[in-house]
């Protein structure tokens, strides 16, 4: 039975590429995303064609019991969840306070913070009983710094960061490695940045900052660091890591 790497938020960016990288290393990759069954199936097929094993499932993380049911089903039908990647974003672009609705704020919190809490509540007892597990949490500049227009996103991601800290405080000594990964820059990801900008602007951005300029973070390369973090020996764990393109200004230097 292969150990499972569960990816919550598996688009064509970080989530899908991390799933693929872990599948190459012998994990069964379990990819969850909210929509786009075709895109999900393409990623699962690509992993299988690569010789890996994978499952895809459409999950709306905001719905009650959706995450909890997935965890139970995977443990019953596929194998022990060794690695969890919580990769749901909550970026809605810059919005002034008056343009940030209560609904938008609440949704941000549900995706940014509450979903991780629910996932942790479901997997931590399992991992604790086994004495090991890894929880890799994708996070953002907004977890470190509240930039203008980021009311909903910064609150959600700041909450995510603090939740990671308290999870670490309770579970590190029980063998669960929690990592808060600060993605401090734009990712070359068609499903998130691409959709936010629209195809034309995204292509333009790729041409000016991406491609050979390497100024957009490449998800295939980000996946290498996720894998390294999951493999760190318990004598030498990293709780938090910041990643950005070489040409980008870091959050602490704005």
């Amino acid at each position, binding site marked *: 039975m292969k150990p499972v790497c569960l990816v919550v938020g598996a688009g064509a960016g970080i989530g899908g590429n991390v799933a693929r990288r872990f599948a190459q290393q012998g994990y069964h990759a379990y990819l969850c995303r909210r929509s786009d069954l075709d895109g999900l199936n393409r990623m699962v097929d690509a992993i299988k064609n690569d010789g890996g094993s994978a499952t895809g499932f459409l999950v709306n993380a905001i719905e009650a019991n959706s995450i909890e049911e997935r965890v139970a089903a995977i443990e019953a039908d596929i194998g022990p969840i060794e690695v969890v990647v919580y990769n749901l974003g909550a970026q809605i672009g810059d919005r002034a306070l008056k343009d940030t609705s209560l609904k938008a704020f609440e949704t941000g919190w549900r995706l940014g913070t509450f979903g991780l809490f629910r996932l942790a509540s479901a997997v931590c007892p399992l991992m604790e009983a086994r004495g090991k597990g890894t929880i890799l949490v994708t996070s953002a500049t907004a977890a470190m710094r509240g930039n203008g227009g980021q009311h909903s996103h910064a609150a959600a991601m700041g909450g995510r960061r603090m939740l990671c800290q308290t999870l670490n405080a309770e579970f590190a000594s029980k063998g669960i490695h929690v990592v808060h990964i600060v993605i401090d820059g734009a990712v070359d990801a068609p499903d998130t940045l691409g959709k936010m900008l629209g195809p034309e602007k995204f292509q333009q951005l790729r041409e000016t900052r991406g491609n050979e300029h390497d100024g957009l973070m490449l998800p295939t*390369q980000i996946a*290498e*660091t996720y894998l390294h973090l999951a*493999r*760190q020996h318990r004598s*030498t*764990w*990293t709780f938090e890591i910041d*990643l950005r393109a070489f040409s980008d200004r870091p959050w602490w230097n704005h």
Partner: protein
Amino acid sequence: MSQSDQRNAQPSEQDVALIVGGGPGISSSCARLFAKNGMRVGIAARNADKPVLLNLENTHGVRRYACDASEAGAVELLFQNVVRDLGTPTLVVHNIDGRVAGIFRKGIIDADPAMALDTVRNSAFSAFLVGQQSARLMRENKPNAYGAKGTIIFTNASAALKGFSFSGAFAMACQAKSGLAQSMARELMPQGIHVANVPIDAAIGWTQEDGTRAHRLAGISIDDNMADPDCIAETYLQLHRQHRSTWAFEVVLRPWVERW
């Protein structure tokens, strides 16, 4: 997929690593791991004839250099010699703790000013000198498979994160080193040189002759409660191999059971 995804991601055989500050812990682990990964490795220490360094030379072909890294002229000469013997460094690890024996556990009232200054000179000032020489040389390097002209890693300590009591000199030294690393990262990363600050927030227990892992003061490591320098070296190597689209600046390493 962009073009850079397709690049050959194998480590370059031309990698030249220089580790400044050499002892039995992180520096030895790095030297062994870097050599195993095909790099030409140099290691510099005040006393380059320590048995542990001689052993690295014999077992892993590591080149030894005597250098007082708190002296500008000595550091310049060190880099000239490394370039002559091994080639221009592509990976430099500054790994000097810097504390002089008499400064440990001294409160602010009792700390000897000359020892405090020596500690800062040995640690942060030597980091400046090593960083400066590295940057001058690396900016002329050609980008490697990861788009980088070189990597500069500063080993740091818990004192970089918080000022402990009875440790004022070391707190100054470590926070100065962090500030230097941040500044260098801002200046050099856009030029293709990866700079990383790595505070080790723990006692480091290295493997002794009897196979146990232990720290001089903290005793024997039980259940991986001390950082294993061989594992620290793995993270240093990963930092060096990060693609330039995705560079980490600060990585804190601590054992799973460490409180913080």
